[in-house]
Structure formats: structure tokens, C-alpha cells
């Protein structure tokens, strides 16, 4: 037996400058075991709910993550609205859907760029992020923010999108599709890229299910589940099917995210056509009492907001289970038996967001 060595990976690593630490137990160049460790920057935001008015807490929820902030805010609002039996206007539900999907497009483009950077394809990284800038411009145009949208509130949304603006955004997305395809085709067909992803880090369907993997990590292993199919926001009115691949390797996880970009653009198109006229919010009166688990599909997968309230303006408990947290056991499994050089790429393929995880 070769000599075993423990190599520390993170909490600051050139490929993954987010504070997750892995103790990699290696024999020669092969990883035998990976022991994860987090909590370097845990912010205790769940605890803050005890001191923050439940209406105001949406500002905090949005700041749990700098990438999928819109969906964090939306999920928190959904949980409160379910407990309080608030009927959110249809137009607000469509607007939440549009912002949620714009969020998914920019998040997946961000991830593709990071992935390209991870395997040293700098030009590809820059093209992905160039395209992402256009999406951020759309978000800025409609919400005033590029990272924190501030568009969702309990009972609806704060901002509306007028028809000309929405038509301009849809036209721009239609034009972008060709460009996105040109760039994403590199991930799908380029030999040097496939060399780093095809057959690397295989997560079987059984493992993905038993380890509680979520999102693209789960769907790339052949599991057909996407929380948008629950029909929250406007998804019950839109036509789509979860994107599923079966190989379970890094390439499949990449392909799922690429296809989801085009799916999101299609969902925005559908929502723009169906967007009903009407109010964008309702007045919220009273205080919440009860409990609910809100589940939505973030770019990284299913997020859970558990809320328990006792009829005061301060919630008793808010529990946020982020998709990255759920994907850590899958990452540990992926790393067992891999080559040391593949560790950064494999860590990237779950699209880790430690900011969310350290909520």
C-alpha cells in the first residue's frame, strides 16, 4: 500500500475562492477520502429573524446569496404567504418567474465561466461572463440592482415591468440565444474540454438519490425532479419539462446547465406572452401564525425555507436549507477515487455557493 498523505484544499483555493475546506486523503495521486469542513464565515442570518420584523426580513433573505438572491427573497415570501393565506396577484407571480429565470440564466453563465477558468480556458471564461453582463443589464434595467434585486415583497412584488421593456428584453434574449449556443457548444464538442469532463466524477442515479443531491447535480444522474414542477409562482401555467441527463459525470452536469439556460429563456418568452394585467401586490395585514416548508428551484437546486410563527411580528424560527449544503455529501462521494488534479473541477461541478451555505 502506498503512503497516505493528507492534503488541505481550501478554504482559499485559486479555483474555488470560497471558504470550504476539504481534507484530501491521498495515496500517490489518487484521492481516497475527502472530509469536508465549513463554517468559516457562518453569519447566523437564520437567528436574525427573531429580531427583525417578518415583513422586513425579506431584505435579509435576499442577501443570503449574491447570485440567486431573487429566488431567496421569493422563497421567503412564499413561506410567509402560505402561512398567512395571502393570495398573491397573478401578475406578481409572473414577474417573480421572469426575474427567477433571469437569475438562473446569469447564474449558469457565471458557472460556465468559472468552469472554463477552472480548466484554464480563459477566453471561454471571458465569453461566458461577457454574455452574463447582458443579462445583468436586463436585471438592472427592471429592478435597479444587478446582484440584489429588491423586487420581491410579502404579498407581491415592488416593481413592475412595462410592456415595451419586456418586449425589448425578450428580443435581446432571442438575439442572445445564437451567441450563447456558439459559446456553450465549446463545452459540448471541444476535445480538450471533454477530456476534463467526460467520465470524470460519475455519480450514479442511486447515489444521487441516497445522498440527497439536488438540482443539476441530481438531474445529471438521471433523476427527473425539478421543484418548479410543484407549480409555484407562474410555473403551473408554463410548459416545460425538467432537463435530465443520465451519465452522471461532470460533462452531464455541464450539459444540464447549458440546456437549462435555453429552457429559462423559453420560460421568460412564455411568461412575457401570458403576463396578465392587474395589480402587482396586495396589502398585508395581520401577523403569521403556523409553519410551512417552502420549496423552490434555485440554479443550484432545491432550496427549503422552513418558517414557524406564533402570531407576533417576529418569527420563532426560520430554517434555510440551501442546495449547496444538500450537495456536499454528493461531492464527498464524487471525490472518492478521483485524481488529485480533478478535485477543483469536481468541486466546481456541484456549483458550490458557500455564501448561501454560510447563511
Amino acid at each position, binding site marked *: 500500500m502506498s503512503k497516505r498523505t493528507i492534503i488541505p484544499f481550501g478554504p482559499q483555493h485559486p479555483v474555488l475562492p470560497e471558504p470550504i475546506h476539504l481534507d484530501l486523503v491521498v495515496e500517490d495521486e489518487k484521492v481516497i477520502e475527502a*472530509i469536508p*469542513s*465549513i*463554517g*468559516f464565515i*457562518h453569519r*447566523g442570518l*437564520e*437567528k436574525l429573524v*427573531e*429580531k427583525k420584523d417578518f415583513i422586513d426580513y425579506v431584505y435579509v433573505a435576499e442577501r443570503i446569496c449574491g447570485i440567486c438572491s431573487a429566488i431567496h427573497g421569493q422563497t421567503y415570501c*412564499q413561506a410567509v404567504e*402560505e402561512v398567512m393565506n395571502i393570495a398573491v396577484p397573478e401578475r406578481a407571480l409572473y414577474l417573480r418567474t421572469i426575474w427567477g429565470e433571469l437569475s438562473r440564466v446569469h447564474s449558469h453563465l457565471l458557472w460556465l465561466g468559472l468552469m472554463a477558468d477552472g480548466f484554464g480556458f480563459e477566453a471561454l471564461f471571458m465569453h461566458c461572463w461577457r454574455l452574463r453582463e447582458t443579462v445583468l443589464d436586463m436585471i438592472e434595467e427592471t429592478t435597479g440592482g444587478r446582484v440584489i434585486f429588491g423586487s420581491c415583497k410579502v404579498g407581491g412584488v415592488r416593481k413592475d415591468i412595462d410592456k415595451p421593456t419586456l418586449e425589448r428584453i425578450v428580443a435581446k434574449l432571442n438575439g442572445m440565444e445564437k451567441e450563447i449556443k456558439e459559446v456553450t457548444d465549446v463545452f459540448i464538442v471541444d476535445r480538450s474540454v471533454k477530456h476534463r469532463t467526460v467520465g470524470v466524477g460519475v455519480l450514479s442515479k442511486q447515489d444521487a*438519490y*441516497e*445522498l*440527497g443531491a439536488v438540482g443539476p447535480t441530481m438531474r445529471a444522474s438521471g433523476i427527473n*425532479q425539478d421543484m418548479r*414542477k*410543484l*407549480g*409555484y409562482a407562474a410555473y403551473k401555467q408554463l410548459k416545460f419539462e425538467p432537463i435530465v441527463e443520465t451519465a452522471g459525470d461532470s460533462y452531464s452536469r455541464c450539459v444540464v446547465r447549458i440546456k437549462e439556460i435555453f429552457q429559462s429563456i423559453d420560460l421568460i418568452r412564455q411568461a412575457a406572452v401570458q403576463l396578465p394585467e392587474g395589480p402587482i401586490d396586495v396589502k398585508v395585514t395581520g401577523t403569521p401564525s403556523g*409553519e*410551512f*416548508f*417552502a*420549496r423552490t428551484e434555485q440554479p443550484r437546486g*432545491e432550496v*427549503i425555507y*422552513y418558517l*414557524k410563527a406564533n402570531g407576533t411580528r*417576529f418569527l*420563532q*424560527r426560520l*430554517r434555510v*436549507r440551501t442546495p449547496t*449544503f*444538500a450537495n*456536499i*455529501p454528493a461531492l464527498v462521494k464524487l471525490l472518492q477515487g478521483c485524481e488529485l488534479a480533478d478535485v477543483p473541477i469536481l468541486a466546481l461541478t456541484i456549483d458550490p455557493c458557500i455564501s448561501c451555505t454560510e447563511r
Partner: protein
Amino acid sequence: MIEEQNILSVQPEELVAKVTACKNDGFRLVQIGCAKIDETFEINYTFDKDYRFEDLKVTVPCANATLPSVSHVYWAAFLYENEIHDLFGIDVTNIALDYKGNFYRTTVTAPFATSGSEAKELKA
């Protein structure tokens, strides 16, 4: 309502058997989360199968709270159980991968074991 949510109360001694039954029925472990409600801890074990939501709720008194680990049924539970230990101070016995209090680096021991109002009283 977006979805039906079945929340079933179970006793701590029934927990492992109930969780094992969920695993045998093909449920995915969605999350384990804890809430301090007055002088008790409520621990929710959440499962999903084909978008069907099930939740097992265990309630234990805060004083000397202990729970059996379910990480030998669902290995992924080790993360949640370490989290519950570090944030709430609950002694979860026999965790498959036990960080022994080093999963979260907190300056205060079991920071979530105190409610907001209690924390204010302590500060005063």
C-alpha cells in the same frame, strides 16, 4: 396551498425505525432542521418522493437533549446532525461522521440554543 405537507409527530425512540421505513419506501432525505420553541427543541426530518412531501417531527426537552443519529440510514444526515449539535447543542449519538463540535466555527457554544428574548436578558 402550493403542496400538501404531512407533518407527523414521532417519539425519539421511534425515530430510527420511522426514518428507516421512509428509506425503504424510496423517500429522499430533503433536510433535517431544528427549532427551539420555548423549553423544547423541535427537530424536523423532511422527505420527498415524486414531489410528495413528508415530515417527521421529534420534540425533545432542551435540558440534556439527546437524539439518535439516522446517518446510518441516510449517510447524508451526518451534515445536518453535526449542524444541529454545533448550533443547538443537542447531543446526537453515533453520527457516521462526527466532527465533535468542529463543523461550525462559532465563538459562542450552541448559539441557537438561546431564543432572542433570552439573549437580550442575558446581555442586560
